[in-house]
């Protein structure tokens, strides 16, 4: 029983981690309707900035704050120089352009920081395991991630769904020309929102750095995962992305935890031990395919265009 509870907790916290990773992309892709493959690169930059600044200042928190600012600026610069020409273009144009950015950032990072990757050590107060229920210890840092993820979710929801700015972003995503004709400086607004998305990417990058890695290309696998979550949740729906992230986190964790044993019960030992790992590798994709076959617009379709 303990085991199940603990695995459920693992699933929940992994889901929230995934939401954190997907949050920035929800804004840029889900709401602004811009397919930004370079989101993973911004996420990587966030982690590299944080590792560098933390090493300079000797403080994890200070380094993180500086890194947030740096990714915000980087995002704004990127949008201003290149990406603003691509709104309202075909999604594929955005794919190609931002794919180019991935190539660029990966090599730029290699040039600047070398190929070896960096470490972002945690301050001691975040490394201790905390007892959350009697008998179950949880890494303190993971609790911190949960808190940040929940805060980001609330922030995003309020900004996008409950404020004028949110309305304008959604309106601008569906019809830029018209929102301009109504007197809104949509270019500026989008630049800022893109910057916010970049900062969220950076936040995700630096938050995961202590438990995952700071590496070239670290953004790419996560990027796909983030897209998977947004798509399962239904593009444009923050609530959908949030629930989908938890759903994916749960299924993935529980699947890996219990699938092999379950399979061993129905299949012969040898068949099970080849099928189980293969199946758990595919699990997330299988999940997405099933969701989309049953609900072609994701679990929580946002308003139709």
């Amino acid at each position, binding site marked *: 029983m303990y*085991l199940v509870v603990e695995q459920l907790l693992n699933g929940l916290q992994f889901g929230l981690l995934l939401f954190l990773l997907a949050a920035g992309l929800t804004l840029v892709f889900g709401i602004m309707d811009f397919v930004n493959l370079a989101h993973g690169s911004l996420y990587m930059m966030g982690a590299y900035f944080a590792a560098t600044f933390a090493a300079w200042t000797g403080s994890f928190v200070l380094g993180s704050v500086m890194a947030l600012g740096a990714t915000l600026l980087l995002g704004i610069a990127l949008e201003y120089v290149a990406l603003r020409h691509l709104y309202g273009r075909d999604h594929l144009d955005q794919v190609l352009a931002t794919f180019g950015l991935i190539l660029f950032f990966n090599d730029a990072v290699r040039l600047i920081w070398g190929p070896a990757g960096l470490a972002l050590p945690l301050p001691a107060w975040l490394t201790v*395991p905390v007892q959350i229920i009697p008998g179950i210890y949880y890494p303190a840092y993971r609790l911190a991630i949960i808190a940040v993820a929940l805060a980001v979710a609330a922030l995003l929801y309020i900004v996008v769904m409950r404020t004028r700015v949110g309305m304008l972003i959604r309106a601008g995503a569906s019809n830029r020309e018209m929102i301009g004709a109504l007197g809104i400086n949509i270019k500026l607004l989008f630049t800022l929102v893109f910057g916010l998305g970049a900062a969220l990417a950076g936040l995700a990058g630096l938050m995961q750095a202590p438990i995952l890695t700071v590496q070239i290309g670290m953004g790419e696998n996560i990027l796909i995962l983030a897209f998977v979550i947004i798509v399962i949740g239904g593009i444009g729906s923050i609530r959908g992305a949030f629930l989908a992230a938890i759903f994916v986190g749960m299924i993935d964790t529980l699947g*890996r935890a219990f699938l092999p044993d379950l399979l061993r019960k129905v299949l012969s030992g040898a068949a099970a031990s080849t099928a189980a790992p293969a199946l758990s590798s595919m699990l997330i994709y299988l999940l997405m395919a099933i969701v989309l076959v049953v609900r072609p617009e994701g679990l929580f379709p946002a308003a139709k265009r």
Partner: protein
Amino acid sequence: ADSIKIGFVSTFSGPTAVIGNDMRNSFELALDHLGRKIDGKPVEVIYEDDQQKPDIGKQKTEKLVQSDKVDFIVGYIWSNVLLASLKTAVDSKTFLISANAGPSQLAGELCSPYVFSTSWQNDQTPAAMGLYMNQKGVKSVFLIGPNYAAGKDMLAGVKSTFKGQVVGEEYTVWPSQLDFSAELTKARNSGAASIFVFYPGAAGVQFLNQYAQAGIKQQIPLYTAFTVDELSLPLQKDNAIGIPGAQEWVNDLPNAENKKFVEDYRKKYPGLRPTYYGAQAYDAAQLINSAVVAVKGDLTKKDAMKAAMEKADFKSLRGPFKYGNNHIPIQNFYLQDVVKDPDGQLSLKTVATIVKDDQDKFHDKCPMK
């Protein structure tokens, strides 16, 4: 020809470029030590990036063979890249020296007169770890590894020698799994006396982070293969202290060549430390040198060169070793541990010799006798 041409295929882009760079650094150092000449002739090395993709590796190999007409091809980190490229080299009778990849096919049915290894066959290292765990009297183990060919080979390698009980075996999604908490929870709850993992590169950093943060480090000891090395150590930091691994080369092996290599490497590449990848690449250069010297520079004498290389008649950084019939080294494996240098730096240290003159178990399948 009036120069010796060597092609070097490895990964120089993407996150694993760090390995390729180390191999290149060591190879260059070997050439420096040789006076950048082999048998009096200048050496020309052409480095090619395989991007860790088999078909690119194959194309680069073809380029080296067809366009640059090299005399030797060296390198290959990845089994699948090597396997894709093998045929090109063998068909053109160009000597190929694998400085890392050691798939079982290479030791068995795909062995070739033109192919040598300065590394090992994949199973040997984990098998050595299994032996060590027996020596320590470990009763039971929980195995965790990535779900791909090498991962499965590694876990199978431990199982082939480990005498205790295997209480559980988990394969994780490769290369994209981020979170190992499900596996760690299972391992802790399994009651196993130890955990064995194989996670190369970034995944190893990630695993050790989560292993330590979950507080399991204090509860269940970890044994590894290819998970802690000089490349990952700066990222793993204290998490790696006390985590044993097996390797055929460690930086403190007490022979003169090795001391010179490690010292000169640190001098030539400040801030970096050599790894076994580099040591293997260094040995590859020495192996080539021994062959060319043996035929007095007449590179058309392929048979004589083959015979010379089979003798492994050069001063290897790991100490002397012999070649098996399949051109895979028969060699010692050492136990390595992570310790703090006097200057506070983390480094690897040889603790014991686990096994002497270990030969891979696929050599029977190799048609060469």
